[in-house]
């Protein structure tokens, strides 16, 4: 089962979130970013070539023009292969682990899989970036000392996906701002204030994962 919603990120760009429900123990969230726009590409290319032509009229050396073409091509390839992310996917498989995939515009995919045994907790953290934004992150256990946290891994790292409102996380199923919502929030033992707008501070997420699955079941059965 699939459905799609759109949001806006901190820079104002459009983001589309797709949710796929495979089975009670497996769900996938797919966040897609707007593609490379022709307008920005043309603008950058024109700037580089105008600069190169200016240098050429100064130096009368045609190597500059070929160098400019070369640089533009290499720069575009490098941008598509290393920088521009098209889609980020989060696949959650019950009792196996969490997989995060980033697919770049050139087709490259980089995947990280975190086993369930290493996950200590999933929390929504807040950060200050000109205004308060929220991001979801996974806390990993320290292999030597199980009570300590060894790493904080943000989910959806690359897209400036810190959505402006917590509505993003509502759609992901972590908060249910409807009728049953306040009950769910009250049932977690969190000391944080339970308001569905921008007042959530570090909600403890130890129940976030089954919350995800039960919410799914309610909606789709």
């Amino acid at each position: 089962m699939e459905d799609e919603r759109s949001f806006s990120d901190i820079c104002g760009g459009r983001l589309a979130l797709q949710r796929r429900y495979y089975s009670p123990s497996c769900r996938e969230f797919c966040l897609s970013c707007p593609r490379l726009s022709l307008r920005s590409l043309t603008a950058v290319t024109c700037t580089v070539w105008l600069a190169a032509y200016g240098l050429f009229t100064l130096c009368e050396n045609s190597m500059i023009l070929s160098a400019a073409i070369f640089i533009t091509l290499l720069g575009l390839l490098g941008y598509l292969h290393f920088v521009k992310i098209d889609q980020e996917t989060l696949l959650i498989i019950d009792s196996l682990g969490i997989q995060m995939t980033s697919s770049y515009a050139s087709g490259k995919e980089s995947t990280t899989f975190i086993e369930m045994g290493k996950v200590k907790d999933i929390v929504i953290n807040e950060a200050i970036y000109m205004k308060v934004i929220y991001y979801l992150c996974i806390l990993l256990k320290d292999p030597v000392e199980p009570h300590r946290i060894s790493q904080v891994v943000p989910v959806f790292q690359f897209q400036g996906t810190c959505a402006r409102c917590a509505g993003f996380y509502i759609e992901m199923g972590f908060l249910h701002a409807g009728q049953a919502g306040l009950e769910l929030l009250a049932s977690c033992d969190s000391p944080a204030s339970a308001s569905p707008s921008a007042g959530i501070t570090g909600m403890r997420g130890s129940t976030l994962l089954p919350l995800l699955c039960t919410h799914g079941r309610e909606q789709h059965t």
Partner: protein
Amino acid sequence: MVLKAFFPTCCVSVDSGLLVGRWVPEHSSAVVLAVLHFPFIPIQVKQLLAQVRQASQVGVAVLGTWCHCRQEPEESLGRFLEGLGAVFPHEPWLQLCRERGGTFWRCEVTHRQAPAAPSAPGEDQVMLIFYDQRQVLLSQLHPPTVLPDCQAGATPASTGGLAVVFDTVARSEVLFRSDRFDEGPVRLSHWQSEGVEASILVELARRASGPVCLLLASLLSLVSAVGACRVFRLWPLSFLGSKLSTCEQLRHRLEHLTLIFSTRKAENSAQLMRKANTVASVLLDVALGLTLLSWLHGRSRIGHLADALVPVADHVAEELQHLLQWLMGAPAGLKMNRALDQVLGRFFLYHIHLWISYIHLMSPFVEHILWHVGLSACLGLTVALSLLSDIIALLTFHIYCFYVYGARLYCLKIHGLSSLWRLFRGKKWNVLRQRVDSCSYDLDQLFIGTLLFTILLFLLPTTALYYLVFTLLRLLVVAVQGLIHLLVDLINSLPLYSLGLRLCRPYRLAAGVKFRVLQHEAGRPLRLLMQINPLPYSRVMHTYRLPSCGCHPKDSWGALCRKLFFGELIYPWRQRGDKQD
């Protein structure tokens, strides 16, 4: 917990039979290693499994049944399959079923005993995870999880579930040794059942490597015994040996060769990779060296080089003479102290004159020397580069001497000035307490001190200028030598075999796994494909980098600047075991 069944992709289209594998209760996962086909005699199956368990220390057992038939299993087949559950008792009992040629799978789990706690709804869900057996067998997880050598079935629950799967498949190699051409009592299907993988060249190399290694190891021990004899401990040779980078590089390569040809087998995969990387590094070195050799000796390039060498040395000496004439005049408009200037300038000019005379004495022999030095390139490009670095050091020896003279003079001056400056202010350096204390001086001490201070202060610009000029020249030479050393280090420590493995067989070096959800239908079990996630190149370099010579600059930039300011001598390439100057 959801029950995970790891099923090999090679067994997806085989005939019906029994599932043979290992059950890991802590992670609730069943790792299927092979499929055992009908007809079989249960006693023989049990004997085979007991043998495999003993040989591999893995708790292999019959996990359930596999049914691959055209339509729904008939009543009799269903009862037969259930009856097998009584012959091979296993808890839980898996029943996998697939329609021939279809994509629909069915999976049932039967628990014989009632579970202790009432199971939540959906407790008995099954997830099918397909894995490529050959890739999982050959791959190696990074960072390596050390699973202790344990009895059949006992695994610490703290290790990840996937590490257990990899370990199980890797240790069950005994099960995969028979293929379908063997006339054994049972017929198994696994990744090697179409024919065991082997290579004639590898087998021949394995047989030949024993005596060859023995021979070469004895030769190398002879060479190291000669190198360790007492003659080389005596003063001139030991001094030369520690200063010349060629000797250091030769020692390094000798160590490498001893490692390669040692008769001890590599204990774990890290040591094996290290050996392989060393072999690749030595081969690359020798190949590059031979290319250089053929380039040098072709078209009498050595003659051209020898002809060009003496004029270049002459040219360098002439430029130095011009520089000294410039310093003896009014360099950059500064006014020098004429007497000191003349003394220092003439002293250095005499040195250059001596040096040029030596070079001219050597000029008939230069071509022969270069020819023999060029031959050393067959020992490897690194040896040739180290020789080049040593030759540059020898040719610029006069610059090194000038730098030392200038630095010593400047250092003496700075120390004198600082101590007399303290006298000016009525203070003294207390050596016992390592601090500055006040002190009352006599009048004549103060008088002489002030005089000396003034003299030293006015002579400072001349000395400082000479020091500056020759330090810059020395730093230039050191930079060139440093670049050559960097290149030598790169060839020494590049893990070529690991990089090649990552390029051509990426599944061998695994950073982890990744999953892909296969076509899913409601009501059917979830099917996932597990693939190996290869290690990124940066981590390959970092993990398998060979240890280099150890000749790295020890000083940070701040310490270097401080030493330059105070006139202390800098030795950027401090070798191991050098005493402080």
